[in-house]
């Protein structure tokens, strides 16, 4: 009956809680842009959005989430894996509110969605691009911390490279921090100095590495989380981008059918919540031959004949 009320008023209030900021050019911004896109479609009067930033710490986030729920927001999105147990704690107290978090698989409560980017899928395709494009046969990954999405991404990427270019070496180095852009830049420099001509990486720190790749000249960057080509149009070749707007739409849709949660939403190439975006300015760098190979692989992934194991 809760959903009916909302349907009557016709306005959906979404609250977003993110660990970094809406302009981090990565994970948080991707989600923010996704919601904005839905808002644009539905109209500002139909979808209201409020954001709380820098709630990297789970305690602070918990308080924000609880407050949003008690203020009658319909959907509260806690955009990070670390928020899982918070939601499990809060959700039973607000049975009419939809909660969502990701990366995660466990939607243990009837009003929690767990969204789960299959980072390895897009990464596999990007890895193929890297393997095909590299001249030095050295490809560098600038990692933040070896965990969660970064592992999935890195593994998928490596498999993609090996699939098309077994001779190529993939070198991973971590900064030990998600936000240290300068350190990421330094690692990128070391990677380039050690011969890498294609770089990739995850988390908001990667912005620092992109800048270094751009400065180095003949190095390409492959983006994760979102299309980062606006940062370095001559360097960012392609991106594995999450289409969070579809995730949001699915949740809104579910609610209208009276389902407040309890679902695991994977973000895959197949369901279009994850996609490969090519930088139009560097379109000439991707030959039709390469494109064909990538598309073929994508097809295989989608029909299940190619499984990318991240175990």
């Amino acid at each position, binding site marked *: 009956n809760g959903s009916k009320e909302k349907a009557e008023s016709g306005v959906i209030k979404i609250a977003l809680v993110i*660990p970094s900021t809406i302009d981090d050019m990565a994970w948080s911004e991707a989600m923010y842009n996704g919601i904005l896109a839905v808002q644009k479609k539905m109209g500002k009067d139909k979808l209201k959005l409020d954001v709380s930033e*820098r709630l990297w710490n789970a*305690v602070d986030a*918990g308080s924000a989430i609880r407050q949003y729920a008690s203020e009658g927001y319909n959907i509260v999105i806690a955009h990070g894996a670390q928020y*899982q*147990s918070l939601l499990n704690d809060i959700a039973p107290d607000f049975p009419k509110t939809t909660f969502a978090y990701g990366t995660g698989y466990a939607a243990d409560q009837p009003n929690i969605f767990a969204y789960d980017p299959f980072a390895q899928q897009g990464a596999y395709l990007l890895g193929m691009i890297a393997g095909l494009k590299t001249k030095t046969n050295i490809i560098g990954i600038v990692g933040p*911390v070896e965990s969660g999405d970064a592992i999935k991404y890195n593994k998928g990427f490596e498999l993609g490279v090996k699939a098309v270019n077994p001779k190529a070496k993939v070198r991973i180095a971590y900064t*030990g921090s998600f936000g240290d852009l300068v350190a990421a830049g330094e690692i990128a420099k070391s990677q380039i100095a050690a011969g890498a001509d294609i770089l990739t990486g995850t988390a908001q720190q990667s912005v620092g590495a992109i800048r270094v790749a751009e400065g180095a000249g003949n190095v390409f960057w492959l983006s994760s989380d979102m299309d980062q080509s606006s940062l370095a149009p001559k360097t960012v070749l392609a991106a594995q981008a999450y289409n969070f707007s579809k995730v949001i739409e699915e949740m809104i849709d579910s609610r209208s059918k009276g389902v407040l949660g309890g679902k695991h939403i994977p973000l895959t190439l197949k369901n279009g919540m994850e996609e490969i975006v090519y930088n139009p300015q560097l379109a000439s760098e991707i030959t039709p031959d390469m494109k064909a190979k990538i598309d073929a692989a994508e097809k295989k992934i989608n029909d299940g004949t190619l499984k990318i194991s991240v175990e």
Partner: protein
Amino acid sequence: MKNNEEKKKQKQERLLNLFIVVAALLVALFIGALLFIIAKGNPFKAYSVMFTRPFTSLFGITEILVRAAPLMLVGLGIAIAFRSGILNIGGEGQILIGAIAGAAVALAFPGLPKIILLPMIFMASFLGGALWGGIAGWMRSYLNVNEILSTVMLNYIAMQVYMFLLRGPLIDPKEVSYGTGVPQTAVFSKSAWLAKLIPGTRLHSGIIIAIVLAVAVYILLWKTTIGYRMRAVGIEPKAARTAGMNVQWYLLLAMLLSGGFAGMAGAVEITGVHHRALESISAGYGFSGIVVALFGGLHPLGIIPSSIVFGLLIVGSDMMQRAVNVPASIILSIQGLIILAIVSAQIFLVNPKYKEKMLWILGFNARLKNRNKGERR
């Protein structure tokens, strides 16, 4: 007669304290208002939310206490170290090591009953934090390595050790089997959860533990021979040595205790709030704890209210950011301003010269009276 006068004086002092703290706060808020204008937000609305909204709901009030618990524990540890002459800025690392040690115990003995398991977790966290603080303490005592240097470095090392354990040996097996790989432990068995004080809120019994420990620290520092020695060593190591105290050992002990308390703050967070250990368990409590301790006058019983005030500051500004829609960063800068203003105001409370002037401004004519009588102490 004399008693009356004493009382009047005490009343004046209290009034002065209040007046000065409020005045300092106003100055900070005024400068903060300029920041709001720069950030294109409405300062009036912001402040009214910040200082009233937390009190309008049970949720707000309980949240303040949820924050106060770890702050109090860290603050107590800092005060112990400070009183013994050591500036412990390694709280952040000690919290993490404490949390992970407690988590390891919670995961290893899920079947034990609550009254055994919880104390074991707290003990483990205490020992973990004590180990981390003790490293710095030992190096300071016996190798003469400056504790500021070592604790800054140890904070980074703790962070990496913590992450290593979380994504390796202690990771939730489900995270591995499912392939999400989020660095967090499995949820503890219920017997490792602190009791909830008020259902429907996050308020847990950690705050009671913290208050009890604050009293214990007070007793330790002022009512026991150990505390006597620790404070003596902090004030004048030379005299303490001449009086037969083992200065090095008491410095080390202070750091062990200080780290142990920070470690227990970690225990409170994992058993009271998250019920598991996860990334980013400390919201800078290691640093805020220093501020809390100093606001509390480095006195355990002062740290109780000061951690609650700081809890209000955190919760209130958090609510304010959502209400006014300004960048979250602005809260940090306003908290910074408040700290600066309040420490600046201390001079009016501590320095008798300024204090007299302030009393005079408030209309208490202590100074002139004394003078005419030509009184000597």
